[in-house]
Structures are given as C-alpha cells and as structure tokens.
C-alpha cells in the first residue's frame, strides 16, 4: 500500500498510469459483472428466500463498497493533510460522490430486498442505520467542500472532517449495533469460513470484484477529470494574467 502513493504521487506518472488503468479496470468490471450476473441469475432458488436471493448479488457488494470507498476517502484525506499533496486531495474529492452513490445503492437495494423478506422497506436496525449514517457522513463531506470557495481551504477542511469521520465511524457502527440489531450477521466473513454454498458464493465474489473494479475505474476517471479541471483553471488564470 505504501508504494502506491509514492509511485502515483507524481502527477505525470499518475496520468500516464491512469490513462490505461482506468479503461482496463472498466473492462474487467464489465467482464466480471457479466459472468457474475449470469451465474447469479442461473443459480438455483434459495429454499427460504426464493428468487429474491438474487438481490444479494447487487446489494452485498454495494454495501462493501460503501465502506471501502470511505476507507479510500480517509487514506487520501490523510495523505493530503500530512503531505499537502494536490493529487491526494483530488483523489479524496473524487472518492466522496462515488462512495455516496454506492451507499445509496446499498440502501435502495436493501429496501427492495427487505420488502419481500422482512415485510417492510425499512427497519431501524443496527446495520441499516449505520449505513444510513455513513451516507449522511458522505453528504456532510460533499456539502462542506461545496460551500467553500477557496479550494485549498476546502481541501484541508474536508480532510479534517473525513478523518474525524474515520475515527467516529467504528464508534457509530458499534453504538448502533449495541442499540438494536436484527440484520443477519456477515455470511462471508463468518467463523469457520463462508456460511454459503458455492453456487451463491462464486457469483457473489465475482460481483464483489466487479464492483471493486468499477469503483477503481470510475475513481481514476474522476481523479483524471479533477486534474484536468485544475490544469484548465490554472491555464485560464495564466491567460488572464498576461
């Protein structure tokens, strides 16, 4: 992990790397997603959940990504706060809306799954609520950055907020669990291996990897866009100056 920021901290090198890495991750995401969806839709019905078990293949990876993206936001914010690195800040800025989107997807698919399974769109359950709070944290980060005109200040304020969120997230998670939980525990990281037959596990893992690649691809594209935008702004300032 430590080599990656060091290697990519050079913007030129980052642009050269992401130029081919972004489409490559995109292709991987589409390929894995196609196979995963095919296997998911041809898998047998679950004896309890019937057809609705297939929602798992789009719900669980989205929930994983919602947290993974916040971890990315935290790491990027940390690097941008400590090293004052513009690229790390671009990465943090680019990760937030993506993370919010995946969190929203997890909430929506969860509601659609909860309706047939639990008989309700939403319950005030520990894990659901902590994902909702995670969504609010993303919104707070995006709102803070959007309401500041000075970009350098917005970057540092956002980084501080992201790190406060990183410290608080485990506390929020466990406090909400302590409060109330009936969501089933993690099936993937259960004691004694995954508590799931291979027909479901293989497509689920494929979909997880597909989501991860999609996130990687979109993230790189957004960072590239951010770098281009900043370059364009700098160029416009130069033009105005001369």
């Amino acid at each position, binding site marked *: 992990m430590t080599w990656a920021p060091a290697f990519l901290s050079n913007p030129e090198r980052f642009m050269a790397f992401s130029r081919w890495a972004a489409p490559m991750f995109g292709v991987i995401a589409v390929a894995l997603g196609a196979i995963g969806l095919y296997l998911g839709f041809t898998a047998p019905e679950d004896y309890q959940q019937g057809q609705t078990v297939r929602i798992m293949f789009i719900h669980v990876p989205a929930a994983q990504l919602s947290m993974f993206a916040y971890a990315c936001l935290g790491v990027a914010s940390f690097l941008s706060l400590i090293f004052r690195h513009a690229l790390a800040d671009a990465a943090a800025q680019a990760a937030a809306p993506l993370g919010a989107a995946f969190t929203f997807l997890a909430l929506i698919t969860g509601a659609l799954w909860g309706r047939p399974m639990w008989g309700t769109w939403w319950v005030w359950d520990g894990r659901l609520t902590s994902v909702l*709070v995670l969504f*609010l*944290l993303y*919104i*707070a980060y995006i*709102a*803070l950055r959007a*309401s*500041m*005109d*000075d970009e*350098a*200040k917005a970057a*540092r*304020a956002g980084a*501080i*907020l992201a*790190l*406060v*969120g990183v*410290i*608080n997230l485990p*506390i*929020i998670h466990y*406090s*909400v669990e*302590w*409060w109330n939980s009936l969501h089933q525990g993690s099936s993937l990281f259960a004691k004694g291996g995954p508590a799931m037959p291979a027909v479901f596990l293989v497509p689920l893992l494929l979909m997880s990897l597909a989501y991860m690649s999609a996130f990687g691809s979109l993230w790189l594209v957004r960072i590239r866009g951010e770098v281009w935008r900043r370059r364009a702004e700098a160029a416009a300032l130069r033009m105005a100056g001369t």
Partner: protein
Amino acid sequence: MSRLLALLQRETALAWGRGGGPLVAVGFYAGVATLLPLAIGPEPQRLAAIATGAAWVALALASLLSLDRLFERDFEDGALDLLTLSPVPLELTCFIKCLGQWLATGAPLAVAAPVAAIGLGASLDLAPLIFACALLGGLAFAFMGGIGAALSLGARRGGLLTAVIVLPLFVPPVIFGGGALDSFANGLPWRGGFALLAAYAAMAVALGPVAMAAACRNALS
C-alpha cells in the same frame, strides 16, 4: 493559569450574552417540548413512552443552536487571529471556548431537561439521571459541535452547514444517553449506557480541540 481563567471568563461571558445565550437555547428546548404533544396527541401513556427519548433528542437539537457563532464572531472581527498569536496553544483555546459554550448553554439545558421530560410524563425517579446524562451529553455535543463550527468557518451558509456536519456525529451520544434513560425507566441495568456516554464525552473533550485547532488554522491561513 490566570490567562486560562481570563479566557474562560471571556468565553463564558460571550456565550452567555451571545444572541440571548441560554435563554434562546432553553426557549427553543421548551418550544420543541411543547410542540411534541401537540403533534403526537395528549394521551399520557403515549407521551410517557416517548418522554425521555423526546427530551433527549430536543436536547441534541437545542445544543446546535448557538454553535454557529462559537468561532464565527471571533473569526469575523479578528479576535481569532489574536488568540492564535497568544502564548496559549490554540488547542487549549478551543477547549476553553467549548467549555464556555457548555457552561453557558449545556448546563442550563441540563437543568431544563428533567423538567421537560417530567412534563411529558416521565417518572420523577428519572430526574437525577436525566440531569447527569444531559450534563455529560452536553459536553459531547459542545465538543463535537465545536468541530463542525470550526470546519464551517469561511463557508457560505455556515450555520446550516454546521448542523449537517454535526448531526451524524451526534449518533453515539444520542444512542448511549437514550439507551441509559430507557433502560433505567424499564428497570434494566443502565450503567453500561451511562458509562459509554461518559467515555464518548471524554473522547470528544480530548480529541475535539485538536481537530478544531487544525480547522481554525486552516480557516485563518
């Protein structure tokens, strides 16, 4: 030491006088507590079931009210620049600012909280615990809220932004305090929730000023 005391005196006096100070906070609190039965219905049983929870949420909302002026006024008139130059570290200054905020609004709200809860139908035995929870929770609200207030310095629509930033961070203290009160009301062990609330308040007091000082330095740079 005398410097710190002078600073605390200044902050408390400002928080006390700032836009009505405790009067606004307690007035808002009383207003919310009055609207609740009007919206929910006057049946005593229904109200008693939600009394402690409603009093607790209204407390979290009321402690948001005066936050937006906590750093903003000093930021606008340049006092924050002077405070940064003083020999007192900025972290300590932020700590004292929040402490003043807590003394001026958190403590009066803690006095009002049992009254509101009992008015809504909570039993009288709950009053000491509500007071203690409101004092500790107020500490957590003031210090987490201070982070939001410091971060939204220099932003457009700072006050509203503070609320959006801070409300997700209020989740743990609201849960711990509400849990302790609910357990006590139902005769269950309540010390766990109370201890967790105290732990969260301690963390907010210890780490909050670091984040606040970093945010202030950023806003002033």
